[in-house]
């Protein structure tokens, strides 16, 4: 299997990484808001760290597209 992997071109690494980040983005939104802000009396929109995660994922997609 390792030999088979070694025959694959390097740009596939970029595609696989981008796919993983997109999958992670979907996973993040499956977590309910109530679980993210558990313990906060009056949760604000900026405290929804799923949005922070989305910005991070967008940055990573940019990086793996560019390089």
């Amino acid at each position, binding site marked *: 299997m390792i030999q088979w992997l070694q*025959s*694959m*071109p390097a740009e596939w690494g970029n595609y696989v990484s981008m796919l993983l980040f997109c999958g992670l983005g979907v996973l993040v939104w499956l977590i309910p808001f109530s679980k993210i802000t558990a313990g906060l009396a009056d949760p604000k929109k900026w405290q929804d*760290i*799923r949005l*922070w995660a989305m910005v991070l994922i967008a940055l990573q997609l940019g*990086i793996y597209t560019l390089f």
Partner: protein
Amino acid sequence: MHSLDLVVIVGYVLLIIVVGLRVASRVKDAKDFFLAGRSLTWWVIGLSIIGSNIDTNSYVGASGNAYTIGIAQANFEWIGAIPAMIIASLIFIPLYWRAGVYSIPEYLGLRYNQAVRVVTALITSLFAVFAMGVAMWALALVLETYLGWPIWMSILISGAVVGLYSITGGLAAVAFTDALQVSIMFFCGIIIVGLGISELGGFTEFSSALTKDNPDHLSVYLPADHPQSPWPGVILGLGIVLSPAYWIASQAILQRSLGAKSQWDASASMMFAAFAKTFVPLLIIFPGLLALVLNAPIDDSDKALPWIIKNVLPPGLSGLMFVAVIAALQSSLDSSINATSLMVTRDIRHVLFKQHDPARDLVVGRWISLALLLSAMVIAPFISDLGGIFVFLQTGLSLFQGPMLALLLQGALSQRATPTAGLWTLISGVALAGLLQFTDINFYYIAFISFCYSMLAMWLLSFFTTGLPADQLAKLTYRPFLRGSNS
């Protein structure tokens, strides 16, 4: 060294000691010492996480590796960190924080049994002592290079400075000094990027000069048959195993999140750290690339960063950058000391020696911190005999991170994993990874193979052994995707 540089260095050392001792005066008990009294806020923890994470590998090793293999080294900061940090932030940190544990082995002890707790604490503590020796050695090497101090004197002085605030102030002192150190690192890193790019006439000129003789140096992935960094190995070994195992199981990293004042602060701290992590390559990768473009006359790639500091930065800033390098090494060392002291004090001493007196934990924790620091100082001079720093640390991690990750994943996300399955999977998984070290398989693949084995072994062994009662599992597992779940 310019006198201005010397003033900056002395000023930094005094500042760190004052901040550390000021925080130290608030330490009253073991909870204050190990978890900062659960009072830390998200941005302090986030900066502290990055401070602990940027270590010997990063400043001494990664710049050198970037000089050799280019931007592919940045995968350790991107695919090799960000996905795992997001998962840690949203799933694992809330679980640990709610369980009220002090350490990851303590969580494993609750989820599986006390034997698993002791074995994981022993393995990670043993590795941490070596890692501390490596950090101490690298710190001494930097001091020798810049100040001309003998290795033994560098070890003694740096040990005394780190020991002064980490042994007295515990996690709070470590977190606040880390936050300060990371701010200095970023400030210096941005200046290096600005000066480097402007010296070359802009980013386009920089990138064309870099890729002229090194066409792969701006490619984030190298060919699949690359001996050091094959792209499938990077994704499978680093992205899927080593990175999640580090970000969801490293005591030195997660301890500050467990010291957060609320569950949200604990989660947000890791997400904030992930933002900072995205830009860490500016600090540790760019200097290596810049040294290459500027045709640095160096015979060893690990000298890329020292060369940049000496030749690109003006007096004063060169001292500040030197301070940033010391800061990176110090912040990893102090975190390791506090985290390992916690594991020895609570996870090993409480279980093996049946000593549960919380009132004595603070005193014992401080003595153990001192013993760990002294051990690191004794080991440090012999570290150079172990080969390259980067390869040594990664090989060590690949021994146990696959099995640890399997235990945490199945333990946290499934109610099916049983205590007996956990213990035997851990022991056999580490043994398998140890055996594979004698083959010519790359350590990324070793980590991936031992992880796959451990996942399968856990699954199968859990069929034939008895699990924990449902009410216990309810507190220790987290199934956030089920709206009606207990968590």
